[in-house]
């Protein structure tokens, strides 16, 4: 029995000593990348990053076969994973991403979801039609569609004069931007909610579309009964074209998820759902922007512009702009090669 050799150094310890410096350098680079933009890094460091990453990754493979030092293996695994996400997860610059979103992704998502958008619009119109028809049979139906708090005195018992006053009043706020902000955050939150509810196979989203339509239909019926239909149209349409369009798009995004969850098609359900979710999310980013525009039009534009025809003019313009931007295909520019 010979004693085990102690004086000869452990191979794995020597391996570690020879590579350690690289690992520490990679760690330092990663730390810097997490706290400052890539542009702050020197060219030398940028070139070194993938080299160090691959060296460390190969060290991990070697270490797994040669060392039994658990702490070292854990360290290398953690370091390689961090470096992997940095090397392969690098995203293009924000400006380029925004350009792509506006030039391509948003309209493309809207066009891809045209069926869902049609369905959402149909449900919205259906709700409006039903409420309008029911009001004609019995004005008391109004209370079923518009709760007392939201009506703010605009109900079947109101006089024509007070109804007209609402349409041309400058509203409760001194600073119009506040009203616009309130409208935007409120509507955007509801739109996001409608989108998320799509996950329940789209049923709650459908319900939201119909009830939203009902509210609009009831209001229209009320004003039409007082001979103020045209005026209300201008009051609503100045922002309504943008807002209702955005609402229908949000509903469409929700339906897209619900539909894919139920019928994933040829891909596996998780794969199909992930693709659908991302497409719908792109559209939702656009919806929030549209609702910001609608908030400004409603909170500021409508309060300042009290001429019916001007209101209709803005409504028509926004309809053309949105329709053209989202649905008319443009000549594709040559895709730039990603560097």
């Amino acid at each position, binding site marked *: 029995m010979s004693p085990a050799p*102690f004086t000869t150094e452990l*191979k794995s310890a020597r391996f570690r000593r020879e590579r350690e410096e690289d690992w520490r350098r990679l760690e330092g680079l990663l730390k810097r990348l997490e706290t400052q933009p890539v542009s702050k890094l020197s060219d030398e460091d940028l070139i070194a990053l993938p080299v160090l990453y691959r060296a460390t990754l190969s060290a991990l493979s070697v270490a797994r076969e040669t060392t*039994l030092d658990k702490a070292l293996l854990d*360290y290398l695994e953690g370091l390689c994973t961090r470096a992997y996400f940095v090397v392969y997860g690098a995203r293009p610059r924000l400006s380029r991403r925004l350009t792509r979103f506006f030039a391509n992704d948003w309209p493309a998502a809207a066009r891809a979801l045209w069926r869902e958008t049609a369905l959402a619009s149909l449900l919205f119109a259906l709700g409006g039609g039903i409420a309008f028809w029911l009001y004609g049979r019995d004005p008391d139906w109004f209370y079923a569609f518009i709760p007392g708090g939201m009506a703010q005195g605009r109900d079947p018992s109101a006089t024509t004069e007070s109804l007209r006053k609402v349409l041309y009043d400058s509203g409760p706020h001194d600073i119009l931007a506040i009203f616009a902000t309130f409208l935007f955050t409120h509507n955007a939150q509801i739109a996001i909610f409608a989108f*998320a509810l799509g996950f329940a196979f789209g049923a709650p989203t459908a319900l939201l579309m119909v009830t939203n339509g009902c509210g609009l239909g009831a209001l229209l019926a009320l004003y039409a009964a007082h001979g103020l239909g045209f005026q209300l149209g201008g009051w609503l349409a100045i922002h309504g074209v943008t807002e209702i369009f955005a609402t229908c798009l949000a509903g469409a995004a929700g339906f897209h998820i619900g539909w894919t969850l139920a019928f994933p098609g040829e891909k596996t359900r998780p794969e199909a759902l992930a693709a659908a979710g991302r497409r719908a999310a792109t559209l939702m980013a656009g919806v929030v922007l549209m609702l910001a525009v609608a908030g400004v039009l409603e909170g500021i534009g409508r309060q300042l512009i009290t001429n019916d025809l001007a209101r209709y003019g803005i409504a028509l313009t926004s309809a053309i702009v949105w329709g053209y931007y989202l649905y008319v295909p443009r000549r594709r520019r040559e895709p730039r090669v990603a560097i």
Partner: protein
Amino acid sequence: MTDYTRHLDQPSDAQRQLITPEGVDLRINLGSASQRASAFLIDAAMIIGIMVGVTLVYALAINGLRAAGHALNIKWDGEDLARELFEMFWLLGFFILRNGWFLGFELGPRAATPGKRIVGLQVAMRNGGRLSADALIARNAMREIEVFLPLTFLLYNAAANVDGWIVLLGLLWSGIFALFPLFNRDRLRVGDLVAGTFVVQAPRRRLATELTERRSAMAPAFAFSPDQLDVYGVKELQVLEDVLRRNALAAQRVVADRIRSKIGWTPRTGESDGDFLDAYYAALRTRLESRLLLGKRRRDKHDTI
């Protein structure tokens, strides 16, 4: 015996393959449900803290101005204006925090909110690809039905004019979304499912010291025979490593006594437990690693190669 080997051979339930283009499996670990919950609670507390803090500062400032105006006998009529401006700021701030806190931080280079960073988690694509903004939007918009929907039903109950049964049914229904991560292997919440993401552990480890290079590990006073080293395998080696790194003296004594009796080692006078364990660890690792180079990995003491 099988339960020992299982631990080393098969990946645990929480481990997932992530194979890099270079062909190396990174063996990432999923964040557990409790980690996820704590990360979310930390983030929620931060958001609420910010809102409460801002409101308090505003209230103090308004009160201070009012008191100052009173003392100096200046009539200040900007209070309504200030309040309206603050309301606007608050509304917009709350909207941005509620929807943008998670999105903004997860878009950052660490792909994690402050809560996730504290717990040691990050978001990643399930296919290992690049984390895109649309995926993160989808992931975080779904929080509306996972968190705010159940909350709404709870608030309905507080409002008390809604039928209890409806509230209960609503809570049950929305509870499905909230508790989704508990019902699938990958701990995906609804948002993860819709975005194709998952949440993985991303602990920051520091490179620990090389135990075999400690002075006592090299002491020639300790010479172990191959028989004395063949008692244990890799699993025991790594338990020993853990004990040494934790530097807990009580545990070291227990382990040292256990090993001494097992290998029949009579301690010399003045031999410390720490020195003995350092030396035994170095000797055992040397032996096991030299056999590893020959392709023989002795998993644990029950393994017979």
